[in-house]
């Protein structure tokens, strides 16, 4: 039979009939092992070397394939997020109920712990130069008058003056909580993440000491 196909016969570096007796599977394993221990029959075969190089290149571009996919697989409508938000809204992290004393018989007012933490984050949003990352309320929130500690982790912007920005934010947190709740806040700790603050700015517990 006369083969007159115009294609070159050896286009695929992974054609197993011309891998000097090696297989794609075997060469993939060899690559996975970091080509160790050294296998002379693979290392001395030009075809196997060619195949290994191709497998390495494929591995290198693999993450890019999924990124290219993302363009094709982008959600087709905006509803997809609201469906998820609807579902998690039911189980939002509300936390404990903090009672609000109210002078009307039968009235039962409360604010959720999650809402107070949102207020602390909002205080950060109102402060130039920092972003609130994590908030935490420690203490017996459900008992009126019990001491409560507020811990906040923030990052400050590179050009922000921490010694000025952080105490201002701390003051705002105290005022905001006082305005919206009857919590007795005995301590507010603001820890600055990724920032250069010298030891003299902090007390032993990591509180920034206003100067």
């Amino acid at each position, binding site marked *: 039979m006369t083969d007159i196909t115009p294609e070159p016969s050896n*286009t*695929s*570096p*992974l054609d197993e009939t011309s891998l000097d007796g090696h*297989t794609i*599977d075997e060469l*993939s394993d060899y690559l996975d092992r970091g080509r160790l221990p050294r296998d002379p029959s693979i290392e001395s075969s030009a075809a196997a070397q060619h195949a290994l190089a*191709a*497998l390495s*290149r*494929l*591995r290198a*571009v*693999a993450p*890019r*394939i*999924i*990124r*290219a*996919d*993302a*363009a*094709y*697989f982008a*959600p087709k409508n905006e509803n*997809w*997020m609201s*469906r*998820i*938000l609807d579902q*998690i809204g039911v*189980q*939002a*992290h509300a*936390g404990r*109920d903090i009672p*609000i004393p109210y002078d009307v018989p039968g*009235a*039962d*007012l*409360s*604010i*959720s712990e*999650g*809402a107070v*933490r*949102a*207020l602390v*984050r*909002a205080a*950060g*949003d*109102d402060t130039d130069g920092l*972003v609130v*990352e*994590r*908030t935490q309320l420690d203490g017996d929130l459900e008992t009126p008058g019990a001491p409560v500690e507020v811990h906040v*982790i923030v*990052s400050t912007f590179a050009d922000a003056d921490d010694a000025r920005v952080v105490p201002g934010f701390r003051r705002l947190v105290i005022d905001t909580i006082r305005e*919206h709740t009857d919590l007795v806040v005995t301590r507010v700790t603001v820890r600055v993440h990724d920032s250069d603050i010298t030891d003299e700015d902090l007390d032993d517990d990591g509180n920034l000491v206003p100067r």
Partner: protein
Amino acid sequence: MTFGEVGAMVSLPGRDSLSDADDRTIASRAADGDIRAFEILMRRYGSLMRAYAARIVRPSDADDVVQETFVTAWQDLPDLENPASVRSWLTTIVTRKSIDRLRAARDQDSIDDHDFHDPADGPAETATATSLDEALSLALSTLPEDQRRCWVLREIAGYGYSEIAEQLDLPVSTIRGLLARSRKTLVDEMEAWR
């Protein structure tokens, strides 16, 4: 009466700047209970997660998998130790959810005894690739689904052969065969672009 919605009433001047923040900051905020930060996270990685899921499950199931992924992410975010690695963490969840979905579909399939082989609704075979990445994305679409699944679990999710075999309920020898064939097809496509 509960003022649970107080957070939603507070104006958020920081919201716009937050959308430019890095993954660590956004993930920390979301872990703290900030649903707007979580929205930003979904916007940032929704397409990637959907692409990922569509390569493992039937593409028509990808939306459900993405939904389950983000609902679980919201629940588990407070326990994420390194918020900067939120993308790979999401990838781990979407892989697990995809495999769960696959198993459920398989169980269902053995009951219904019907064959499902939806053509991947990804990049169309007739589309013309304008880059190597696109060409490989197209080639991935044309692979038989079991080959595609194995390749994604191995090369993107980083699963070992025995792990893939266990998750897909197939012998390791079969997995090896599927991977070899998928690698050959993709390498041939890649070489055509050299």
